[in-house]
């Protein structure tokens, strides 16, 4: 009975709002068998800089984990376009604070970059496909999110 039950599950959910030109607000939730936490992150374009961040821990494992909450402020001022953005977050928010907060922050920021790409596509409606693809490719390369699709001429 129940021999097919999950022995671990992790859910990450991120929603991004675009309340005004050049401002992206992400709300992220990480919930798994061990941890549960939430983040609110605000990022301003065109430099994709983190301007505000707040987080709460809903389920943690040690009485020391809460000390990671103030360390979230180490992310303010970081730009998603920095080549070493991921390692900076892993060090300043993760290693100095909480690895799971860092994981969730990276998820929020990556989702914001996807939202920005979509925004670019929607505002470029009057462009030819080729020109739009070129512009998106330029932006993704700038954001160090290069991939097969963006490095291939359309």
């Amino acid at each position: 009975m129940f021999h097919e039950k999950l022995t671990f599950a992790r859910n990450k959910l991120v929603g991004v709002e675009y309340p005004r030109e050049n401002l992206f607000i992400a709300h992220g939730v990480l919930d798994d068998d061990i941890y549960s936490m939430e983040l609110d992150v605000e990022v301003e374009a065109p430099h994709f800089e983190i301007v505000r961040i707040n987080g709460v821990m809903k389920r943690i494992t040690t009485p020391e984990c809460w000390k990671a909450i103030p360390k979230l402020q180490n992310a303010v001022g970081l730009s998603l376009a920095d080549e070493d953005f991921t390692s900076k977050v892993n060090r300043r928010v993760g290693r100095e604070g909480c690895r799971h907060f860092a994981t969730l922050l990276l998820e929020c920021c990556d989702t914001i970059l996807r939202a920005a790409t979509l925004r670019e596509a929607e505002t470029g409606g009057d462009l030819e496909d080729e020109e739009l693809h070129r512009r998106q490719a330029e932006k993704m390369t700038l954001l160090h999110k290069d991939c097969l699709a963006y490095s291939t001429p359309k």
Partner: protein
Amino acid sequence: MVLFYSRNKHASVTDREDGSLLVKAQVEETCFAAQVEMIVSLPDLEITSVKAKVSRMMCEQCAEALPLVNKVAGLKVGPGIIKIINGLVGGSKGCPRLAELLLECCDQPILRFTVGPIAEVLAMPTEEEQMEGHREFLRRNPRLADNCVAFAEGSLIREGVEL
């Protein structure tokens, strides 16, 4: 205001009857959807098989990256796996999204085997016993030292723990 973009990522582990683990990760977001499934053998944590599917993509070239996931079979989950998978599947000749899902899968076996020891500590009846339980957990897993604020120098958990 309505939501502009959403991402929902789910990863899970199931213990198989032959002693291996079935690990799945899937993402459903506004402009992309994909699933990765792998079997991980124990105790060596070798990825013995992997398959992936991209159901919705940003542009049609994305599908060309799909065969790259086969390169991951035979790798062992452990130190260096991030760089290896990003090199084999991500980057400008691949798909960083698929690489992320594969890495999501690689995290799950570790977390799956962390649940039991953590649950044991948290089931201890007093705060003092739990604290000692965390210290013992750190002694058994010294790689966790300085991994986060809870196991950093100066934390209560580090008191009396010689590594």
